């Protein structure tokens, strides 16, 4: 086991059981995270990206099943634990104190009937810590200040008095309460205006450099991922299509899907003439296409692509692609 990797996801597969059958939401996901890095998992809606987070933290909904794979987490003392195998009790201790997850859709995450400060107090109590009120206040206030908020004022407010962006940042502060080693964020920028989003990205960057914390976030917004992340994993139809350092994946995308995605972005810079829309419809996770899940929309598709699903091929140092074009 490579000692600098704080998290290793190996062959993780998860499905959701529904009346019509099973939704293959995550298929054979392989992803490593270096300690202190920011990794982005990029995928569209229903690509399976949130499923990976849920599977990793074992917080799948009742109809979700993990059907294979391991997630190795390296603790402070260097030992590796397999998050898929440890007991529920142990996992609960790890969750929030070492691995914190900030959920999506901030609207409902905060209790509207209690003040922000009470949220912090409740969290401390729920985890069995015995901190004094003043300690909690100071720590919470500091964290909120780090987020660019007026800590004391926010702590006294009710959630509905805060704007969407402020609530998002409050949730992040809440998740940092116990100094976790890994911070996982599910679509942190989705519901935000562009200026608020820019502010949040800046805040995330700052806490990353200040706290030296490992961050993993899931987003459908490729440019946001490109801006923040050191490493990227591109998910399509439940499969990991490409992964590597951000500059490699964005600067020189190898997978046809990544290439197509980058060229279809409507950005505020860049040549407008070069924008190329991608044809086709999203794949069904209930009945995925045979072979490579992207082949129906792929401009480079070969005969083999509709029959066999390719494995991950290494194309460069720390750059892997799931595409038959790169079979050496």
């Amino acid at each position, binding site marked *: 086991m490579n000692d600098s990797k704080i998290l290793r996801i190996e062959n993780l597969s998860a499905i959701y059981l529904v009346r019509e059958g099973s939704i293959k939401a995550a298929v054979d996901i392989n992803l490593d995270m270096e300690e202190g890095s920011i990794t982005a998992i990029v995928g569209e809606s229903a690509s399976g990206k949130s499923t990976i987070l849920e599977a990793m933290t074992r917080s799948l909904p009742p109809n979700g099943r993990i059907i294979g794979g391991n997630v190795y987490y390296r603790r402070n003392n260097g030992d590796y634990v397999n998050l898929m195998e440890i007991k529920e009790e142990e996992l609960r201790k790890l969750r929030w104190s070492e691995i914190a997850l900030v959920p999506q859709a901030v609207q409902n995450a905060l209790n509207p009937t209690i003040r922000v400060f009470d949220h912090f107090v409740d969290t401390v109590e729920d985890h069995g810590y015995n901190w004094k009120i003043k300690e909690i206040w100071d720590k919470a206030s500091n964290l909120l200040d780090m987020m660019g908020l007026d800590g004391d004022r926010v702590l006294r407010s009710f959630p509905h008095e805060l704007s969407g962006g402020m609530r998002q940042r409050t949730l992040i502060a809440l998740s940092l309460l116990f100094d976790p080693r890994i911070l996982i964020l599910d679509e942190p920028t989705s519901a935000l205006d562009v200026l608020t989003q820019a502010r949040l990205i800046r805040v995330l960057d700052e806490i990353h450099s200040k706290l030296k914390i490992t961050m993993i976030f899931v987003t459908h917004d*490729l*440019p946001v991922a*490109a*801006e923040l992340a050191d490493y990227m994993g591109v998910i399509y139809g439940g499969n990991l299509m490409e992964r590597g350092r951000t500059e490699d994946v*964005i600067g020189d995308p190898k997978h046809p899907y990544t290439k197509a995605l980058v060229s*279809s*972005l*409507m950005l505020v810079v860049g040549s*407008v003439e070069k924008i190329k*829309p991608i044809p086709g419809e999203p794949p069904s996770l209930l009945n995925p296409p045979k072979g490579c899940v992207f082949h129906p929309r792929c401009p480079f598709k070969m005969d083999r692509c509709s029959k066999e699903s390719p494995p991950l091929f290494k194309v460069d140092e720390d750059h892997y692609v799931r595409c038959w074009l790169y079979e050496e």
Partner: protein
Amino acid sequence: MKNEIVMSLKNVSKVFVKRRFFKKSFPFYALENIDLNVLKGERLSIIGESGSGKTTLARIAAGLDVPTEGAVIWFGEDITKLKSREFRKLRPKVQYIHQNPYASINPSRTIFDVLADPLKRHEDNIESLEERVAELLKSVGIVPPEFFFNKYPRHLSGGGLQRLAIARALIPKPEIILADEIVSMIDMSFRAAIVKLLIELNERTGITIVMISHDIGVARYFSHNGGRIAVMLRGRIVEIGSPESVIGNPMHPYTRSLILASPVADKKLAIMKRELLPKYNIQKEVWESEIMRISGCRYAFFCPFVDDKCWTEKPKLLKVGEDSEHRVACHKAGKLPTWELESVE
């Protein structure tokens, strides 16, 4: 140069009054004295963040809501003054597409019916309904059309549904279409295709399309090559012009902040933009009521270039230099530093 004006809003305001006991009630202006002309066959984008009033503007322009004051003029007629019978004659000519296709298309009707119902209403002498529906589905890229006849909207993706919504909006043979945030709820890899569909529609048939979006990239793509972009802030238009002017040489600090805040896929560029942002935008939390209370520029709280005049006097939309098409509402117009991104590809 397309000169003919097909739709215009003259001094349109939409006010909500919040009444409070024991306190002076203050009016909330969703739209404030908007003057906007829409030219025939143009691709106009209206961009703004949430709270800018862009959806209110679109709905009033589409005749779905009434303004508190002002005139909404379609093809020369003020629709706010028309009786309902006369209004109904003009109604088919202006269509509106909603943001959420899952809500704007009835889930209990088949895809065939979604198009067949309005077809029966608007077209006489249809020889074969199936042929017409198939034709429409093909024109928006839903193929093979017959496969979808007896399917329901839930069998289509978000992008597919919006295509269906576009096909449906075309049935009354409108001259103007208002598309309200139609790609916001669709995944990234399908957005460009929908926007391109509308561009092609405009180029092929000359239909006037107004695209409302919070995403400048979408506006830039949609309006490039002859279109215009209007930037809205809290109920007012603060800048308007061609994409080359508004994005290539923005004159309003708010427009510059929006451009700087938009994510790009290049990390170095992103960092550079992020460093520049505070130059045009002061980050602070301000209550809506405070912003609305001042009589001057709505950007005053956040503007690094603000002076006394900005707080008290509302800036007018005025020409920028020689270009009569590029207008900006800022007392400091022309006095901002040179646009740093001018040289960026």
